[in-house]
């Protein structure tokens, strides 16, 4: 278990403020946040690369204090891979072995296993400059994992790769996490990566933790307008029960949004264009389409109801078949269970 208790870190112009975080052993934990929110800095503080100003960082109840990074039994994989350019792939992978009391036979076996698993056997004599992004990332992962670290820190490990390689690496990361008894802590701003890989996570903003919990709860039950907006809830309203157009959403049999809460949030994909046929669990509404915004395979459909604007996300196919276009009045449906108030 990694425990951060009231951790503060001051730098000129930026600081991490009173960070409290618990990361269970063998968890795949994601730290999410916008650019410049302090995600990577938090990772470097856990690693011991940035000295904290106050608070404690402990691993399995052992205070890390001023323990240098090389003694923390952690590995780090950077977004830009940080491979040593003057060493071959093999030399990179084996770089840290001499600093760890690892049995020779075990290391050789692990090396062969990792090289095979990462498909690096044909690249062992090459220098990093001649490798593709995916090959570099696999080398960086093998270099960290050969030492069997208790914790592997991943600093936006997929963001420098093209989409096809990202999918392969995601699968690889998932299988590595399942196979190795290592806690993975990943910094990311990609929802799809986090949803695919992580079990739990935290959202950080301006150096402060906004929310922690399971990835499902972060995305479905945000506890602040910022978290709701950051996790892609495009429909966020303050004092919703006082907005006439939204009143029908509170007229349910008790298993829906609470009118006494200050905020309401609704994911755009939760708004349905077809009637699911269950009146008790769904609220039927009407509005006028004001705008269609293409998102590739999807459209953001902006619907105006009285003074309120809603954003729904529907497939291109649905928009074409239902002839949804600006100015048209349409019916749509919102399941009570998908409405989140806080």
């Amino acid at each position: 278990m990694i425990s951060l208790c009231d951790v503060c870190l001051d730098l000129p112009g930026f600081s991490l403020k009173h960070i409290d975080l618990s990361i269970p052993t063998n968890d795949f934990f994601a730290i999410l946040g916008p650019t410049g929110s302090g995600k990577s800095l938090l990772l470097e503080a856990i690693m011991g690369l940035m000295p904290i100003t106050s608070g404690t960082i402990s691993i399995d109840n052992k205070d890390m204090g001023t323990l240098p990074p090389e003694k923390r039994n952690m590995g780090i994989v950077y977004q830009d891979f940080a491979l040593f350019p003057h060493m071959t792939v093999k030399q990179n992978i084996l770089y840290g072995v001499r600093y760890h009391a690892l049995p020779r036979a075990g290391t050789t076996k692990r090396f062969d296993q990792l090289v095979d698993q990462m498909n690096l056997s044909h690249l062992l004599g090459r220098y990093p400059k001649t490798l593709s992004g995916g090959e570099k990332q696999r080398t960086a992962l093998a270099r960290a994992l050969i030492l069997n670290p208790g914790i592997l820190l991943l600093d936006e490990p997929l963001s420098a790769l093209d989409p096809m390689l990202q999918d392969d690496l995601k699968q690889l990361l998932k299988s590595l996490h399942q196979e190795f008894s290592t806690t993975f802590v990943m910094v990311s701003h990609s929802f799809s990566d986090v949803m695919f890989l992580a079990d739990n996570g935290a959202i950080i903003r301006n150096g402060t933790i906004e929310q922690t919990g399971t990835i499902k709860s972060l995305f479905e039950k945000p506890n602040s307008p910022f978290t709701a907006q950051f996790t892609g809830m495009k429909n966020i309203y303050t004092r919703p029960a006082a907005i006439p157009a939204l009143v029908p959403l509170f007229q349910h049999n008790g298993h829906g949004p609470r009118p006494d809460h200050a905020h309401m949030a609704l994911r755009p994909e939760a708004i349905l264009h077809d009637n699911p046929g269950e009146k008790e669990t769904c609220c039927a509404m009407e509005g006028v389409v004001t705008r269609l915004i293409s998102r590739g395979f999807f459209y953001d459909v902006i619907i105006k109801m009285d003074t309120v604007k809603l954003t729904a996300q529907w497939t291109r196919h649905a928009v074409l078949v239902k002839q949804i276009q600006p100015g048209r009045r349409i019916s749509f449906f919102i399941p009570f269970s998908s409405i989140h108030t806080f």
Partner: protein
Amino acid sequence: MRSKIKSSQKLPSHAGDSDAFWFFTILLSIPLVLLIILPLGRMITTPEMADLVFTIKEKTVQAALARSLFTALMATMAAMVFGTPLAYILARKSFRGKNIIEGLVDLPIMIPHPVIGIAILSLFGRNTLPGKVLAFLNVEIMGSLTGIVMVLIFVGAPFYVNSVKSGFETIPVRLENASRSLGAGMTSTFFRVTFPMVRRHMMLGAVLCTARAISEFGAVVIVAYHPMTAPVLIYERFTAYGLKYSQCVAFWLILISLLLFISMRLLSRERKDR
């Protein structure tokens, strides 16, 4: 053939602009290149072979050339040993007074070189405390190889420190962090990751430092007219015997310096696949 461009076909308008740009760039570069090539070319081509052979056989000339090479290389080695840690601190750390130290490192580049000689002499003169300490240790500055090396460190080290500092600055701190995450301490990280990557800048800095040291005259002549280095001998031959006699020594100094720098550059070549 369709693919052939007809001679009458006009080039795009920006091609003319590009041609004009390169024409003036080359035109403005030529005077500087000529200013370097012509006097040096004259210096190398003027002496006759018999004079050159005669000059290099002189014991005084051989000793002066060897002394110049030896003191320049000693100064470079000292600059490498003491300048590399200083360059690392300046590249990696932020602290109060850093700008002042950087300014002080650059100072020898800016001040007239006889002033450097006078400064060294005034610090290590026989009546000063450092001078008395050195005299007690039987170390002579005035008119000695030690004095020459000290002066050459003073004039050459800034070139080395600045070159290596910019080298350290090009190495991402993340590489050092990655090394430490893999279990290497600061010292191991420096020698296994940082040092091999900055090697080229060190060699370049060493070339610059040696070049500056081997050619130094102004500061050396104040501290040690004797034993004579090659530049001092060239000056003496010029004032005592005239241009012809100084040119022959200058030829050998240029040739030896050229061979030295070419071999140092070859040593610092980077492999293409790295």
